[in-house]
């Protein structure tokens, strides 16, 4: 069945209802299902880590099902996809460990089966080698995420956000579908490899440009690209915190992965025409995200906007388009996923313990929740581009690549934006560490162990990558070279 990793995940998703039934029988559903979900994710994560030595040697796992390669549905695990898959699985693992104590017992089976389904769908998206498979997994991912956004169906906030997200995102999916039909009409195939070969012969056809634009809109919508970002803050606010972490660390990055795939694998030969529009989108995204984040009081909304800004940074790397910039983008995907997951999980702990997500109300909470607050401040410092923490290195790579490629204005705009993000991150630290305590923060207590462990693990990873960035940088460079020079 598919590749081992995807097989394990798919089987485990299908087995989740059985486990919850078993849990009901022995009246331990609240414990059994989370343990099951976490252990499945641990297995999957370890499986994805096992792929890495092979990647460094340049191995590719390829499997096709149903007919000749042009029309079949095929799965391919190359460096980029395994890299993304292990990010997703790691974050999903920590987030589900985190939420094992939060979810109400009556909903626990539904919650964890949707999380597992979403992890499977995301891994499927990055493993698929043709648009047919990709679209199926993509929609599976979208359906899981609509459900997760409106998971707290008693609260009108989450229903409204879910509605908005559903309308916008399904419009995006329809636009992708439309583009796929164009591509199919042009080339008669949906396989990535043969698409890119046949598209390199098609020149000066307006339909190609329309198709790229529609793919850009569809995938960019999921990635939170600027004109289409409006669903994102609402959805991230309304979803449970662990889900917000998965959203901004994984689902969005799936959109970015698809953008990279479209621009650098499929439309490789047309990329030069799209260089400027992507740069414009990137600049717009950075500015919108950072300026909206500056004055937010709601922590979740603030990090949602900063997620948009970071999508902008990754797009800057994509717009520069040299191999060094792309490696920077990939590295930033990893770093930002870790940092934003850390921040959202900390906010989740604050919400659970202090029942608020307002920055003013948790002033000086470090006295009552020391571990969480320290991890939180590490995350915020990293977001502020503090040297020796992880985000610094990837942003440095992107900015340096822009200067190297002679696109200094883009690097310059990005540096201005880094200043903005430093401003709001330092403001967060000021509130959490220095301001006078409020009644709410005095009453809060340290979060329970299953919540603190993932937070500390993520904070440790932030510092680890910050101090030893070399192996990770080399890994991303290897992956990028494999993408760009494979043909």
């Amino acid at each position, binding site marked *: 069945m598919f590749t081992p990793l995807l097989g394990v995940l798919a089987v485990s998703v299908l087995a989740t209802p059985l486990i919850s039934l078993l849990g009901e029988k022995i009246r331990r559903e609240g414990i059994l299902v989370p343990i099951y979900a976490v252990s499945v994710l641990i297995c999957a994560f370890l499986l994805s880590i096992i792929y890495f030595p092979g990647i460094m040697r340049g191995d590719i796992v390829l499997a096709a099902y149903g007919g000749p390669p042009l029309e079949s549905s095929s799965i391919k695990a190359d460096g980029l996809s395994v890299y993304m898959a292990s990010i997703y699985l790691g974050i999903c693992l920590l987030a589900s460990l985190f939420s094992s104590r939060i979810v109400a017992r009556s909903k626990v089976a539904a919650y964890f089966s949707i999380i597992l389904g979403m992890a499977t769908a995301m891994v499927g998206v990055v493993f698929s080698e043709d648009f*047919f498979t990709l679209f199926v997994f993509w*929609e599976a991912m979208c359906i899981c995420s609509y459900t997760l956004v409106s998971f707290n169906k008693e609260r009108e906030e989450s229903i409204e956000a879910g*509605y908005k997200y*559903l309308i916008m995102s*399904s*419009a995006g*999916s329809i636009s992708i579908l439309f583009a796929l039909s164009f591509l199919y009409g042009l080339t008669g195939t*949906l396989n990535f490899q043969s698409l890119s070969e046949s598209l390199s012969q098609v020149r000066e056809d307006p339909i190609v440009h329309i198709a790229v634009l529609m793919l850009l809109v569809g995938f960019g919508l999921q990635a939170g690209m600027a004109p289409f970002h409006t669903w994102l803050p609402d959805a991230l*606010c309304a979803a449970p915190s662990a889900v917000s972490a998965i959203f901004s660390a994984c689902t969005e990055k799936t959109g970015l992965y698809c953008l990279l795939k479209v621009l650098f694998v499929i439309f490789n030969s047309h990329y030069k025409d799209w260089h400027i529009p992507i740069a414009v989108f990137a600049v717009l995204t950075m500015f919108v995200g950072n300026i909206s984040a500056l004055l937010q009081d709601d922590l979740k909304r603030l990090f949602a906007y900063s997620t948009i800004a970071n999508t902008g940074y990754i797009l800057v790397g994509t717009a520069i388009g040299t191999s060094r910039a792309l490696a920077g983008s990939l590295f930033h995907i990893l770093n930002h996923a870790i940092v934003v997951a850390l921040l959202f999980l900390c906010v989740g702990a604050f919400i659970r313990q202090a029942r608020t997500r307002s920055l003013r109300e948790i002033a000086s909470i470090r006295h009552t929740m020391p571990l969480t607050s320290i991890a939180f401040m590490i995350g915020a410092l990293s977001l502020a581009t503090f040297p020796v923490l992880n985000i610094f290195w990837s942003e440095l790579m992107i900015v340096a690549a822009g200067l190297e490629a002679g696109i200094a204005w883009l690097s310059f705009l990005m540096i201005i934006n880094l200043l903005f993000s430093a401003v709001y991150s330092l403001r967060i630290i000021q509130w959490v560490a220095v301001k006078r305590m409020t009644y709410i923060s005095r009453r809060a207590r340290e979060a329970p162990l299953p919540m603190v462990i993932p937070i500390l693990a993520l904070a440790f990873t932030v510092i680890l990558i910050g101090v030893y960035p070399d192996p990770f940088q080399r890994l991303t460079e290897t992956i990028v070279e494999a993408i760009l020079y494979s043909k």
Partner: protein
Amino acid sequence: MGLEIMMNAANLNFIAFSSQAAEGAVHPLAHVFTILSISIGGCVIALGLVITIYAYRHYGTLDVRELRRLRR
């Protein structure tokens, strides 16, 4: 509800387009893809209707203009 119907219409429109793209001889890929996208569209619409029902329960109306309490 209007939005739902519009989404449905758009979905159908594109599905029709994607089947039209198979020129001349019957090409299995387009048909398989169309069937799959119809079923996926059905799933999404079902979920959308569920959310719509909950929205109705919370807001007492399906007027989209009423659904903007999140603006800040």
